[in-house]
Every structure is written in structure tokens, then in C-alpha cells.
């Protein structure tokens, strides 16, 4: 009897050990909430990177990687923290790809990731405030800070010769952060912001906001919002009353939904989203389409890169412990080393195994600067003939 117990206890230990050796990545996105239409392609991107690593034989000594999804609700900090706690304490993930929206990401970072010492790489949280968080070296992002996007927006407007705009922003960390960053850059360059006012998401009626903005005037309405939420309501309201007919769309607005619903109505409107030029995106597009998801979805390439960076950093550090591999994230992302494009993760693993160095470029031309955030290339788009067309990169 004793022997049997011992044996089963040993077996249980072995099983436990074997289980613990598998690497788990948490995928923490807003699968519900105002950006729910973006999250499927983002998650598909991250899971695609994981699949590529597994197909190449896994990380370290052939350890397979699995993904566990968690929902943040995008604007629901308590849900986000609860999901992150579950990922960390019960699923025991070795790293988190996420969060998705800025406010929720800050909350998860402070309340779950830092206390538990887990690395988070967010593909899409862009608030400038996240640059200065005391993160113990645990937080990175493959998207640029909105301080940079604000400057890009000011440049686009200046190049188009537009000097007076009204701004409406969604009343949260992302909206306020970007709207303020933009106003600062734009007024510094000599532009005028006639009004910088918030709108709440998911409300029944936006005529009050539209009325006030129309009174303030301006050549273009800059809609710093979400296309699935108040952003759409603001555009409809402004179009219906004839208050504005040209709009500027930052990254939260640019999506297929925008093209379908407002493409032909807002002819000549323009915007930008983080997206790189070069071989990386093209390769990723091909690979993603072959894998059966939409790789052009906003932040989908960044999600792929976030997952790839975590796994490559593990390989480089020779450990799946976040507190060990966190120091390697910057190393694998930046020069020196061999450039790694999407679809070459297997090659990267081999180089790292052989003791070489890699410079991960990936799907969004990753180059981490400062406190571990992307330097940022933006794709400028314009509505032409009802279609969203790329007109350049900045």
C-alpha cells in the first residue's frame, strides 16, 4: 500500500513537472466592449506566432507553447484585472500578450503583472502615460506611444494645409491622452484647436456634442474615438446636421467597419494607423491570409510581434521565468543581429540556440525605444471613391 502511494505520488509529481514545463502565454484582449471587432484578428495574430514557434519545435528544449485567452472588456478595469489574475495564478502563464486598451492595461500592470512579476507586451495600448510607469522592466509595447501619433497627426494636417480643427475624444485614457498629445503638437506647429471636448461611449444621442462642436467650427473634425462606439455616433451626427463633412480618423477609428459604414459618406476624409512599410507587413499579410484570418486588421501585426518577442526572449535567456527573460526582450527586438521577418521565427530560434543574436523586425518593423515601446511608423489612409486607400507612410 505504502509503495503504491509512493508510486502514485511520484507519478503525480512527474505529471506535474511535465505539465509545468509547457509554456503558456496569456492573451489578454478586449473580446467584449468597444473594440470587440478588432480583437479576433489580434488574437489570431498572436496565436499564429505561437503556432509558428510550435511548428518549429517549440522553445528551449522542445517545450510546446499554448495560449490562454482572457477578456478585459477594454474599458472594464476590474474585469481586466480579474482575468489577468486568473491567467497568472490559476493558468500560470509565463507571459502576457496584452492588454488591449490603455486604461485597462495600466490597471492590469499595476495590480496583477508587477506584483506577480509577469512580463506584459501590449500590442495596442498607446497612452503616453504608460511610458512613465514604474514597471520593473516588465512592460513593453509593440505599438508607439500616442505622443508620437499626436505629432504625426499634426504633420498630416500641416501638409494638407489645414490650420483649424475641432477635436472630439472618447472619455477614457486613450482618448484623452491622444487628444491632448495632438492638441499640444498641433498648436505648437501653429494650428488652432477650436474645441477639444469629450464624448461618452454607448450613449443614446450625440446631438448636444455635435451642436457644441459645430458652434466652435473648424475645417476638419478629429474623431479620437472608437468606431464601434461613440465615434460612429459622432460622425453620423456631424454628417446628418451638416456640421462637418471631412474627418480625421486616428487608429481607434480605422477599420473595415469604418470603410463599410462611412467610406462613401466621408469622401476625402483621412487618418492614420500604426503600420509599417517594407517586407515585414507584406510577408505577414501573405502568411495570415493563408492561415485564414485578416492580417490587415488594426494591431494584428503588433499582436503577432508581441507574442513572438516574448517567446524569442525566453529562448535567448534560456528560461521561461519572466524575471529572467525580461532583460532579453530589448536585445532580441533591436540590433545587432540577424534581421527576422514574419515566418522566420524557426530560424530565429535556431540562431539563438546556437548562441547568435537576432534583430527582430517582424510584421510591424519592431524597434523598441526608450522604456520599451515601438518607435512607430504610421500608414496614412484616405477615403477615395468610398474605399480606404493607403497614401503613404510616416
Amino acid at each position: 500500500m505504502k509503495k503504491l502511494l509512493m508510486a502514485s505520488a511520484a507519478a503525480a509529481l512527474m505529471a506535474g513537472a511535465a505539465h509545468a514545463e509547457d509554456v503558456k502565454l496569456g492573451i489578454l484582449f478586449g473580446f467584449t466592449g468597444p473594440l470587440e471587432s478588432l480583437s479576433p484578428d489580434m488574437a489570431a495574430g498572436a496565436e499564429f506566432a505561437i503556432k509558428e514557434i510550435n511548428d518549429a519545435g517549440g522553445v528551449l528544449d522542445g517545450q510546446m507553447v499554448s495560449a490562454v485567452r482572457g477578456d478585459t472588456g477594454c474599458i472594464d478595469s476590474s474585469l481586466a484585472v480579474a482575468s489577468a489574475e486568473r491567467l497568472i495564478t490559476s493558468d500560470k502563464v509565463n507571459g502576457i500578450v496584452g492588454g488591449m486598451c490603455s486604461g485597462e492595461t495600466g490597471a492590469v500592470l499595476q495590480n496583477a503583472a508587477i506584483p506577480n512579476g509577469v512580463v506584459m507586451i501590449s500590442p495596442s495600448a498607446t497612452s503616453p502615460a504608460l511610458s512613465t510607469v514604474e514597471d520593473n522592466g516588465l512592460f513593453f509595447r509593440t505599438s508607439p506611444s500616442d505622443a508620437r501619433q499626436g505629432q504625426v497627426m499634426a504633420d498630416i494636417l500641416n501638409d494638407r494645409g489645414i490650420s483649424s480643427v475641432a477635436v472630439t475624444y472618447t472619455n477614457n485614457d486613450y482618448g484623452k491622452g491622444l487628444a491632448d498629445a495632438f492638441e499640444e503638437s498641433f498648436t505648437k506647429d501653429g494650428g488652432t484647436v477650436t474645441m477639444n471636448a469629450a464624448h461618452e461611449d454607448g450613449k443614446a444621442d450625440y446631438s448636444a456634442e455635435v451642436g457644441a462642436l459645430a458652434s466652435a467650427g473648424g475645417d476638419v473634425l478629429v474623431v479620437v474615438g472608437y468606431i464601434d462606439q461613440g465615434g460612429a455616433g459622432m460622425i453620423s451626427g456631424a454628417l446628418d446636421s451638416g456640421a462637418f463633412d471631412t474627418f480625421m480618423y486616428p487608429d481607434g477609428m480605422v477599420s473595415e467597419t469604418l470603410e463599410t459604414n462611412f467610406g462613401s459618406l466621408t469622401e476625402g476624409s483621412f487618418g492614420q494607423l500604426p503600420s509599417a512599410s517594407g517586407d515585414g507587413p507584406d510577408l505577414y499579410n501573405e502568411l495570415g491570409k493563408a492561415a485564414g484570418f485578416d492580417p490587415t486588421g488594426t494591431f494584428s501585426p503588433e499582436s503577432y510581434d508581441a507574442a513572438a518577442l516574448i517567446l524569442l526572449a525566453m529562448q535567448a535567456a534560456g528560461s521561461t521565468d519572466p524575471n529572467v527573460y525580461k532583460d532579453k526582450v530589448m536585445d532580441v527586438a533591436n540590433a545587432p543581429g540577424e534581421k527576422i521577418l514574419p515566418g522566420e521565427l524557426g530560424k530565429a530560434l535556431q540562431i539563438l540556440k546556437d548562441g547568435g543574436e537576432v534583430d527582430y523586425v517582424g510584421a510591424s518593423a519592431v524597434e523598441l525605444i526608450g522604456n520599451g515601446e515601438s518607435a512607430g511608423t504610421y500608414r496614412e489612409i484616405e477615403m477615395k471613391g468610398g474605399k480606404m486607400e493607403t497614401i503613404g507612410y510616416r
Partner: protein
Amino acid sequence: MDLLNAFVSLANYVLIPGIAYGSQLALGALGVTLVYGILRFSNFAHGDTMAFGAMITVLMTWWLQSLGVSLGPLPTALLALPFGIAGCILLLLATDRAVYHFYREKKAKPVILAIVSLGVMFIMNGIVRFIIGPDDQRFLDGERFLISAGDFKKMTGLEEGLAIKTTQVITVITAIIVVSLLFWFLNRTRSGKSMRAYSDNEDLALLSGINPERVVMLTWVIVGALATVAGVLYGLDKSFKPFTYFQLLLPIFASAIVGGLGSPVGAIAGGFVIAFSEVTITYAWKKVLGYMMPDSLAPDGLVQLLSTDYKFAVSFAILLIVLLFKPTGLFKGQSV
């Protein structure tokens, strides 16, 4: 000319959207107030009832559109509306049979029924999302504008445009028709009078031979029709998205309470009070004053009393003030 410009600008951004939004709120508040007056509880499921009725209408509209049926300049949804109403009524009657009936038999307190309706709300919420999904759905077709801002400027030569959407006109006309039908029914027909009698005093109505189950059924039929009409009009004018119907609940209840819960006239008045308080108090008067005053006096600032962030605070402040001075609302409803 400048005075005209000022007026047109005010009409375009305040009066017309306010009237359309007010009508939508009024129709929603009528449903809430009827349930409160006759069935004696606050029906929190009303927003999602509107979403359900509107959803059936949306699905029927798509089906009709795929058959090539259209109403010309009017939205096809008007044709699909009766189906939506029927579907919504069926759902409400089934809910009543399955849920509310049980509590009514037990003579449950209104507060229990209100909580029960909260549960019903979440179930309806789920049903709607299950069938049509959480996304924005568009089902508007036909002519978008009766007159667009650009055309108006060309026609009149004024600097300010006035846009009147087809859906805004339809909203107001339908609201007038539905409300007059309702008042005719309540005041002139036997069934309507029996409903009012039941609302005034349940026991007395019972003694004079009024069948309570019939009154309850009639109420749900009317509420279903009102909710669907309100939901469809709102969806046509803005867009159909289940979540916003849930959010509509707050202004609808505010309207019903300001007007006086249980009073149909109050519900209509309340709808407009809430709608206009949201739009006017936070309005930036810069443009209007700019036209009305000589150039030297034209304001530089926005001349805005409160930032638009506070528009909900404003409508709830009004709600509080009304209840402080008239606890039964503007039109003597039942005290809450």
C-alpha cells in the same frame, strides 16, 4: 438675414434633434409609465424589450429588402414594423406567463417585481445578442434627407444649413399618430376605460366585473407595440446596437419620472424635457450670438454654460429638482 442665420443654426443643432430625440424618449417613457401605472412596477427590461422588437423588425427588413420590396423614399422598416410589433408582443406575453404571472398571483411587492424585471432584462439582453450579435446593424434605406444642409444653403442663400432627415420627420409623425391612438384608446374605448379603472383601484375594478388577466394582457400588447415603435424609430434615426438600447433605459426612466410615473401625458412632457435639457444647456452659443450681435461684440469664447460632459448631470439635476418640489412629477403621477 443674420437673425435668420441665427435661428436656422439653432434649429439645426438644437430644435430638430431635440424634437426627434424627445419623441423617441416619450414613446419609450410611455411604455414604462403604462407598466408602472397598471402593473405597478418599474420595468427595467423596457430598454431590451425595445431592442428585441427592433431586432425582429431589422431581420424582417433585411428579408423584405432581399425580396426587392421597398417603399420608395420611405424606409422599408415601416413595412416590417407590424411583424416586429407582433414578435415583441408574443415575447412579452410569454414572459408574463412564465415570470410575472407567478409573482402577481403571490401579490409580490413592487420592489420584488422590479428586481425580477432586472433579471428579465439580462435574459432579453442575451437573447438579442444571441440572435443578431452585439454589433451595429444598419437597416435604413430610402431617402436619407428630406432636405440636406447643402441643399438648404443653396435654396435660401443663407450661410447656415438646415438638415431635416427623413427619419426625424417619420419619428415625429409616427409619435403623434401612436400617441393619439393611445389616448383615444384609453379615454374612449371600453377596454381602455377598464385599464384605467384597474390602474386607479384594483379591488374596485375587480368588483365591477373587470377581468384583471385581460387588462394585464392588453397592457403588455400596448407596451409591446410602443416599445417596438420606439425602438425602430430610434434605430432608424441613429443605428441599431443592442448596447445603446440598454443605455437608453436611464433617460427613459428619467423622462417617465420627471413627467410623473403612471401619467401618459407626463411621459410625453418628460421625454421632451429630458431631451431638450441634454441638448440646450450644454449648447455653445458662439455661432448664434455671433450672428445676432454686431461684429464688434461677437464673442471669442464658446459661450457654453457647461461642457457637454455634464449633459447627463444636467438632466438628472432637473429630475432631482422636480422631485424635490413635486414628488409626483410634473403631471401628478403616483408618488415613487
